[in-house]
């Protein structure tokens, strides 16, 4: 847990605060993204937690590894920093030290012996899906994405309960950033750290955050809430503008296909004959239907007009489906996949290509509309 209580920061020589009376709590095991326009004090806010910047007023508490809530201002800054994971952009790796030495920075400061550091580094590389050969290489020999993985590994080396991440994926190209974000979210599900994550990218904030803290210029807290709630209920005009006119679309990012899909879609068995299939489809008013085999593996689809007047097994008329969506995909990715192949309906499959449901544009549309109407209903209620 990280708790801010009326935290204020006024830099010497300035009259207006950089962070103004900030209070919020990040529950244990959650990621809180801090986002806002430049100059909103988001980095300042984060750096006050490990006292790279000293707050001018208020208190900050973190839950330490023994489960005690401690006021960081009463701790020794050096020991405090060693107990908090710190991840910054990939350029923060030490170029003159090997990957092993980089990962082992904090363990070494805490006096671990070499064998233990090596074991931990190997463990972390495995966790990051990287080969152990990397241990003795230098940062400049790695790609940007690999370096960033090492940056994260270095941050979690001593398994600190609390982590600070300062735009960790900021300098990575969009494709790799997406991969790294997904990897990190998967990792977080295992390690369950309490994380303060600074970003300037609202999409990243929505994607990574269990909570989002939106700051305005002068370090004023505009809204602190879950991404879904911020998108459906922006607290004020600033938040509304900041999350963008496309916030309804952004909500698609938060909803996974399994939440909206029809989990009992009309499906044809490959072993049915054409006549049965025609009956099945005209009964439901379908122009085509997906075909599965005995263990629900997706075979493809058949069109009604191809079957008309024919005899034989459905299997003979199957055309392969151009796309299928994996369970766990966000609605945004699902929609974009459907637009690419120009399908209005698409199967949702699991990792073994077994059909688990069907999603169509109508369902996605409904998901967006529901969140909007929810919002207007709320607004009416407030008045």
């Amino acid at each position, binding site marked *: 847990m990280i708790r801010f209580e009326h935290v204020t920061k006024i830099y010497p020589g300035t009259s207006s605060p950089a962070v103004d009376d900030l209070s919020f709590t990040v529950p244990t095991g959650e990621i809180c993204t801090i986002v806002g326009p430049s100059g909103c004090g988001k980095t300042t806010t984060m*750096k006050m937690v*490990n006292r*790279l910047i000293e707050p001018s007023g208020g208190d900050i508490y973190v839950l330490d590894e023994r489960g005690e809530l401690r006021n960081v201002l009463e701790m020794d800054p*050096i*020991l*405090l*920093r*060693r*107990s908090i994971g*710190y991840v*910054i*952009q990939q*350029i*923060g*790796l*030490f*170029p*003159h*030290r*090997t990957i092993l030495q980089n990962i082992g*920075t*904090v363990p070494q*400061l805490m006096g671990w012996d070499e064998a233990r550091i090596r074991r931990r580094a190997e463990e972390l590389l495995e966790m990051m899906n990287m080969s152990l050969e990397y241990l003795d290489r*230098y*940062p*400049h*020999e790695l790609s940007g994405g690999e370096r960033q993985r090492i940056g994260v590994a*270095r941050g979690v080396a001593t398994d600190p309960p609390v982590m*600070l991440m300062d735009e960790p994926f900021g300098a990575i190209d969009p494709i790799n950033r997406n991969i790294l974000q997904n990897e990190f979210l998967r990792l977080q599900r295992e390690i369950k750290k309490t994380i303060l994550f600074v970003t300037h990218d609202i999409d990243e904030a929505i994607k990574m955050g269990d909570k989002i803290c939106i700051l305005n210029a002068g370090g004023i807290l505009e809204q602190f809430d879950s991404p879904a709630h911020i998108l459906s209920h922006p607290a004020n005009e600033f938040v509304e503008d900041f999350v963008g006119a496309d916030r309804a679309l952004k909500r698609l990012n938060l909803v996974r296909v399994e939440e909206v899909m029809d989990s009992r879609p009309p499906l044809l068995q490959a072993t049915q004959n054409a006549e049965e299939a025609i009956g099945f489809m005209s009964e439901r008013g379908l122009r085509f239907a997906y075909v599965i085999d005995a263990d629900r593996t997706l075979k493809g689809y058949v069109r009604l007009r191809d079957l008309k007047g024919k005899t034989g097994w459905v299997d003979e008329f199957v055309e392969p489906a151009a796309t299928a969506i994996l369970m766990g995909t966000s609605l945004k990715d699902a929609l974009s996949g459907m637009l690419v192949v120009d399908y209005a309906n698409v199967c949702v499959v699991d990792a073994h290509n077994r059909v688990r449901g069907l999603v169509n544009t109508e369902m996605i549309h409904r998901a967006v509309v529901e969140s909007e109407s929810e919002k207007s209903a709320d607004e009416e209620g407030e008045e």
Partner: protein
Amino acid sequence: MTADVMQRPRRNGLWREMLDGWVTALTEPSLDVFRAQRDQADLLKTALGVGLLGLVIGLWAVAVGPASLVTGTEPVWVNLLRIIFFTEADFFIIGLILFFIAKGFGGEGGFNQHSYLLSLVAVPLGMIVVALLFVGDKLGLTLMAILNPLSPVGIAGILMILFGFYGLLLLLFALQAAHSMQASAVVYTLGTPLIGWGVLRVASMFAAHEENMITTEWDFIAGQWAKGTIQELLLGHLWLVAFSVAIAVVLGVVMGVFITWPSRRPRLSHLVILIPLVLCFLLWAASSGLLGEGMADSIKVMVKGWDRSLTRAGGFFGPLLDILAAIVSKPSAVGMIGMMFTIILYALFLAGEAASDLTLYIAGIILTIPSVALFGVMIKPLGIGPLNAAFALILYAQLPILRNTYTGIKAVAPEIVEAGRGMGMTELQLLLKVKLPMAVPVIVTGVRVSIVMLIGITAIAAYIGNDTLGEYIFTGISRAQEKRYIAGAILVAILALAVDYFMGWLQNRWTPEGLKGRREAT
């Protein structure tokens, strides 16, 4: 393959193409022009080009008639053929030598392209030079260029020298284009025959017992080496440099580190500084008679005893002992210098970054003081000998080190420093584990600059009674012995080059492995 090339239709005619080649090679020389020419090279053009060179030189030779080649008894056409043959043969031999050297340095072109590009430079420049030679013969031209540059012969001579250099430059392009080599390999290719020629020439001097500057210098240096004088002076030179640099590195790095730190308030614990300060003060006070004449006298006697035992020692450590003896014999001066440096260091320690501008500025000023002037000024307080020399040398040597330490530490990316701090390094750990290791390449560069500079200044220190290689220069000048002062200059230059090379090697070794490939990576 050659047949294919030869049958290629020529759009503008062969002569037009060759003329274009010469003109563009001369008027707009660039790698691209030579590369384009290389792609058009074929055997016919090469043969024509080289043949033309022979013809022009042959005609000229017949007209001017050098005795060695043109004999009056033969018919003109025999002389002409002979000279054409010699020219072609020379061109072929030189071309072949260059070709194989180029191959040795990783050249890739064929002999055909290689020869064509060489002829592209040699033919037009050869014609111009031959035309100029009608003004006067070769030796006369170059001499007149120096003696009477405004006379017609002198102007022709200057032009010829300029065209000669121009030709060398073009040859570099030609070789690079012909062989797609790195620029350095091209220089080596062209330099190797010159050095080879030089070595042969020098060898022939010694074989023929020729009397000239090179042989006399060699004899003189060999004689001095046999007597052991050079070794002695070299040892004195190097020890003075080593002693000064050793102290300067410590002072320079410490001061450089101090001026990158935030400024701090004086604390009670800083009283530790007082210990050396008081010790230095006591040393100065006692030896200069402030604590009673009796004490000063007894110190003097003690110092004399040490001095005697130190200076008697010789051998490898002899010069170092001389330096120590000189330091011991001036306790009051040493106390004063000690106090001075303690105070400066403490001031920088407190002021930190706030003092960086001023410190670097003062360092710049000190560096501009001529060493001879500093030696002279310091004769009064420090006397003549190693103490005076070492003081000046330390003062000069620490400045590049101080400057480079500062720049090196400042150049460490702030993100990296912040990462270290954010992970819980103390300021000292940050300095020792991050900032200094990353600044090492820059600091070592500073040390390298210092050492090379000191080798020169130490030569001058011979003037104030130090046994260094500069002794040859000063005694040589005062006795008007040319070979002596030239020997001194040669030895100092060789020493500087050798030490610089050695430092370059050390620098490469000491650069942290991870910093070496960084430039290519980004």
